């Protein structure tokens, strides 16, 4: 398991947890938050964030007794999504997938993983890929199903895989070419 994440100094300042009304200050604050979210998720290999988790260690600091409001969290995810760093899951705006690597980068990693394990020409379900603990090391092993789906669509678009949608929601398959 990964070690403790080193939070930056400004994580201890209470104003960091209030979205600043002054535009210049707010722009910088959002930059800092976006960077922190991506680093934190990469460190913990987190792919999906639930914004309704009130005391999520990323969004709250018990040492200075401050936490980011749900509205503020949504603002940050919106900003992250503009640059392709996040995508909303569902219409509730409470869950999102954090893309600390680009979808293209995940696609290439998944293709390398499939080639290594000899899955070319066979169909593997998304669940199997996500649950797989084998294969070349690195970020891809233990990836969330949401990432697998996005990576598979990328490979389909570039002609390296075909996505086979099953009857149920769970058994979407990926055929590596």
């Amino acid at each position: 398991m990964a070690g403790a994440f080193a939070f930056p100094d400004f994580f201890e300042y209470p104003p960091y947890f209030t979205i600043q009304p002054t535009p210049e200050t707010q722009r910088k604050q959002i930059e800092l938050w976006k960077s922190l979210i991506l680093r934190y998720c990469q460190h913990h290999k987190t792919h999906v964030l639930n914004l309704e988790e009130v005391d999520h260690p990323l969004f709250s600091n018990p040492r200075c007794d401050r936490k980011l409001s749900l509205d503020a969290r949504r603002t940050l995810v919106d900003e992250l999504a503009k640059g392709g760093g996040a995508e909303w899951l569902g219409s509730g705006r409470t869950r999102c997938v954090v893309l600390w690597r680009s979808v293209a980068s995940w696609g290439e990693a998944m293709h390398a993983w499939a080639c290594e394990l000899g899955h070319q020409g066979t169909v593997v379900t998304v669940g199997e890929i996500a649950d797989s603990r084998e294969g070349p090391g690195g970020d891809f092993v233990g990836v969330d199903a949401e990432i697998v789906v996005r990576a598979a669509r990328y490979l389909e678009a570039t002609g390296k895989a075909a996505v086979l949608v099953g009857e149920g929601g769970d058994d979407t398959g990926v055929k590596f070419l």
Partner: protein
Amino acid sequence: MSLLVEGVALTPSGRPVLAPEELELRMIERVDVEFGDKRAGNMRGGLQGREADKYVAGVALVTSHRLIWLDQARAPGTEGLSCSVHLSRVIEAAPVPLKMTGAPSSSSLATRVPPGQPPPPAAPPPPAAAGRPAAFAISAGVGGVLHRQHQEHKQRQETVTEAFTDMNALMAKAKEMVTLAEHLAAVANRRQQRGTDSSGSDASDAETTEMDAMMLSMGIASPVTRETAGALYHQQLARQLADWLPQVLAKRGGILALPDVFCLFNRARGSELISPEDLLKACQLWRRLGVPLQFRRFESGVQVVQSLDRSDDEVCATLTEMINRPLGPSDDETRDAMRRMDAYSASVALGIPPTIASEYLLMAERHGILCRDDGPEATYFYPNFFPECEATY
């Protein structure tokens, strides 16, 4: 031979400096002055060396001591052609008429003044009786009305005096009080001047504070009223307010909320109270009159008056200095508590009311000097650390 008149000293806001116990009686705008008789054609007059100038479109002011004409075309901060005639010079028998004609109506004041130099300034002031309307030869219009009013007033005065002879003793006391107030004001002024040269001792500081408190309750000797200023009421009110405010502002952190100004100003006026709307109108006239004060409205709607030289940058610098002050060894509070400010602590530190302190904090926030923490109990302001943080720490 020409008719020479005296100059008039003006306050920074452009009102005449009144002598002790001098009261304004009446003010008329757009008045031309005519020295001598036009038909005779051989008379001229005015300030020494400025006899050839035209004395037109000014404001005429009758006080208990003088007939004053204020030049409205003067350059800011100068007296221009503003001039005055002491009422002791105004006698019916004198050969030279002095006419003040108000346009466009027929209101005019005409009087007769002996030609030649004004009396030396050291001449003793006339008894108050010199201001009696008998000394005027008044033709018509507003002048006539003034004359009639004055006569009626005198009659009423006599009735009252007869009926309440006891009051005379009290009146005499009141006069003594006014003299005392003016004396104290003069002393305090001298003190203040000395204070700016060298920082006085604590004892004299305490005395001055006491004196200020007394002066504030003594108030304004000759308040501008609708009756005396007429159409010029708001303009004159604005000027008087501008003359009175700086000493008050100096004691209150250089800034006052409008409601405070209203209370303090009316308290200083004592009896001739003004309405909130009059105050608002007077403040709004400052910019046009070029007085060294500003009336501003913060984004939240809080309205304040402040001196023109108090800039936002200066306040921001003070706040920056306050919030970055190093911690003293006696501070046992957490580091957190010292590095932050709320409206209350800022108001204590700046010596201003919390509403205004809050506006200053918001202003400093807009300038990027502070940033906020909407905490559960209050909003605190911290030094703005965001620009110094690196996104790639």
